C-alpha cells in the first residue's frame, strides 16, 4: 500500500538506489506501481484483441460450415509448432526474470536472447504460412479465390485470420524490440534481485501475447481439423 515514509532522511537506503524515481518513496512502491500499470495496459490489450474475437465468434456461429471449410486450409501442424515455440519462449522469458532474481547477470542476457530467437522462429513460420496463403489465392482482395460455396463468407474468415494473426505478429515484433532493448542494460548489470521492473513488465507483455495465441490457435486452426 502507500508508503509510510514521511521524512526523506529516514529512508536513506532506498533513496540511494539509482533506479528509484523521485515520485516514489520506495523501490517496493515503484515495483508495485509499474506492475499494476503493466497489468492495466494488458487489460486494454485484452479488450483490443477482444473486439476481433467478438467479430470472429459472431461470424463463426453464423457461417459455421463455410468457416470450417475455410479453416481446413490452415496448416494445423505449423500452427501447433508455433504454439509450442511461443510457450517455450514464455518459459525462457520467465527464466530471464528468475535469473535477475538470482543475480545471474549472464543468465538474464542468455534467456533474453533465446526468447528473441524463438520469437524469430515463430515469425519465420508465420511468414511461410502467409506465403502459402498468397500462393493459394486465399489472401482477401482482388486475387481471392475460394473453391466452395459462399466464397465471400470464406473471405470474411480469411480477413479475420489475417487481421488477427497479423496484429498478433505485430505485437510480437514490438515485444522482440523491447526485449532487445533490455539486453544492453542487462549485460551492464542494471538488473538484479533488488530491481528488475523492466524485465518483469516486458515478461508480462510477452506472456500476454502468448495467451492471445493460445486462443487464436484453436479458434482459427482447429475448426475444420476433423476430417469430413
Amino acid at each position, binding site marked *: 500500500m502507500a508508503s509510510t515514509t514521511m521524512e526523506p532522511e529516514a529512508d536513506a537506503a532506498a533513496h540511494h538506489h539509482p533506479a528509484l524515481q523521485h515520485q516514489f518513496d520506495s523501490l517496493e512502491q515503484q515495483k508495485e506501481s509499474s506492475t499494476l500499470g503493466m497489468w492495466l495496459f494488458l*487489460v486494454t490489450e485484452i479488450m483490443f484483441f477482444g473486439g476481433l474475437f*467478438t467479430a470472429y*465468434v459472431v461470424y463463426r456461429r453464423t457461417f459455421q460450415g463455410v468457416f470450417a471449410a475455410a479453416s481446413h486450409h490452415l496448416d494445423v501442424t505449423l500452427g501447433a509448432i508455433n504454439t509450442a515455440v511461443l510457450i*517455450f519462449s*514464455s*518459459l525462457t522469458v520467465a527464466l530471464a526474470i*528468475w535469473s535477475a532474481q538470482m543475480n545471474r547477470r549472464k543468465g538474464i542476457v542468455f534467456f533474453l536472447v533465446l526468447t528473441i530467437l524463438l520469437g524469430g522462429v515463430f515469425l519465420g513460420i508465420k511468414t511461410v504460412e502467409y506465403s502459402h496463403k498468397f500462393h493459394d489465392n486465399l489472401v482477401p482482395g482482388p486475387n481471392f479465390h475460394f473453391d466452395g460455396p459462399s466464397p465471400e463468407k470464406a473471405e470474411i474468415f480469411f480477413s479475420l485470420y489475417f487481421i488477427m494473426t497479423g496484429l498478433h505478429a505485430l505485437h510480437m515484433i514490438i515485444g522482440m524490440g523491447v526485449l532487445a532493448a533490455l539486453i544492453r542494460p542487462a549485460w551492464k548489470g542494471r538488473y538484479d534481485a533488488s530491481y528488475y521492473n523492466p524485465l518483469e513488465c516486458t515478461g508480462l507483455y510477452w506472456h500476454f501475447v502468448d*495467451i492471445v495465441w493460445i486462443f487464436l490457435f*484453436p*479458434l482459427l486452426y482447429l475448426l475444420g481439423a476433423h476430417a469430413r
Partner: protein
Amino acid sequence: MAEHVTSRKLYFAIFAALMVLTAATVAVAKIDLGALNDVVAMAIAVAKALLVLLFFMHVRYSTRLTALTAMGGFLWLAILIFLTMTDYLTRGVLLDDVPGK
C-alpha cells in the same frame, strides 16, 4: 525485499503441462465430437491460459489487486462477446407461430 521466487522446477513443470495440453487439443480436434469440439477446445485453452497467468505471470503470488485486474479484463471481454452474441441468437426468433420467418 521479500519477493517470491518461483523455482525452475515449477517453471519446467508448467511448461511440460502446457505442451501436453497443446498436444491434447490437437488430438481431440481430429475427432468429430460435434458441438463438444468447441467446448473442449476452449476448456483446454482456458486451462493453458490460467497456467500462464498464475505461474509465468506470477498472479498466483501477486496481490489481490493484480488478480482482480486480470479477472476484470477477461470478464469485460466476456460481457462484450456475450451481449453481442445475444443479438445474433435472438434475432428473428418469434414467439408466435408466424409463417415466413
